[in-house]
């Protein structure tokens, strides 16, 4: 079983926070209930979230970027070639991460409390990630890209 949701997270440590805070940041900041007439604190420094919106697809810049990426492709390697073996980046001792084979490809199955990238968001990142409050699982059916979200 890859994804291990725990019905009971009572074990969450004090101030447990989350190793996956960044992944749920938009929920904490942009969703949740508001009470009319109450104010929200100014979220200076949070603009980073807006940077990550989908790039405008229909733009010359995007076209050129795609064309160049396509030109650079190593077509010889073939898209199905398992060019790299799985790189399990989770801490195996944590949450019982497991590797799992999938046909010709190798799959990495991890239950990770992936640490936040420190420094990613300036002062909202000033403390090290504390692991624990959520059960998170990353599932990739081919190789892992460790820096995917950096």
């Amino acid at each position, binding site marked *: 079983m890859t994804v291990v*949701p725990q019905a009971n997270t009572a074990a969450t440590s004090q101030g447990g926070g989350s190793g996956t805070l960044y992944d749920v940041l938009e929920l904490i900041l942009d969703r949740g209930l508001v009470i009319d007439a109450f104010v929200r604190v100014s979220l200076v*420094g949070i603009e980073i979230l807006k940077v990550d919106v989908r790039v405008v*697809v229909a733009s010359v810049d995007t*076209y*050129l970027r795609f064309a160049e990426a396509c030109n650079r492709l190593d077509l010889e390697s073939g898209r199905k070639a398992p060019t790299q073996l799985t790189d399990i980046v989770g801490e195996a001792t944590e949450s019982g991460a497991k590797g799992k084979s999938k046909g010709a490809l190798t799959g990495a199955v991890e239950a990770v409390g992936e640490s936040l990238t420190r420094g990613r968001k300036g002062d*909202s990142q000033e403390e090290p990630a504390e692991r624990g409050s959520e059960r998170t699982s990353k*599932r990739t059916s081919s190789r892992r890209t460790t820096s995917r979200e950096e």
Partner: protein
Amino acid sequence: MSTYVYAITPVDHPLRLDGLHGVGEPAGELRVLKTRELGAVVSDAPEDLRAKRRDLIAHQSVLSRLLDEGATLPMRFGLVGPDDDRVLAALEERRAEYGERLKEIAGCVEYHLKVSRDESDMLREIVSESDEVRRLNEITRERPDAQEERLRLGELLSHEVRQRQDDVANGIVARLAPTGLGHRVGAATSSHFLNVSFLVKRADATSFAQAVDEEAEQQGPGYVLSLHGPLPPYSFV
């Protein structure tokens, strides 16, 4: 002193807050305000609150604990009322609405799924399936000055990428939705073409996770599905 609000709960929620602390530096002390029907977890609002990491964690930790022990309406980070009395007045004023929402989300948690796909993997797929893309790719590789073809190639790729992402995203949502009680799709980003939250009964959490697992299996190489939860139902309040 203004009042920072974390969550609204039914009045009979255990509201166990030991070991937790509020936002701010030094950390605010958590308090409970109660009306006849509802409870609110609050603390004094720090003067200079910003969305710092420790504050986000404090907010999230309070909500996680409350979620574990009963129905909880999570407030958006950073919500500040003028004082305790006005918070109580707001609870009273909308008690019917809050009560209703608490009933709706009782026993439910949110799972957030992000899906990305390796770009090279996708481009290879497109190249292998489109004669026109292959033709334009060859031309532009050989002739760096073929600007018109380069733009045409990019436009074609861009369209195909979007189309494929949308198809996969729609398929994933359609297949997972029946396991949950509701879902909410967020804006795609450059890193994840699908960001979607599901409201899931705790009792169904395992089967939901299995469904996500099967989905990952089905999508195959190049895709990364990451599932986060259980979370307070931020997206469903």
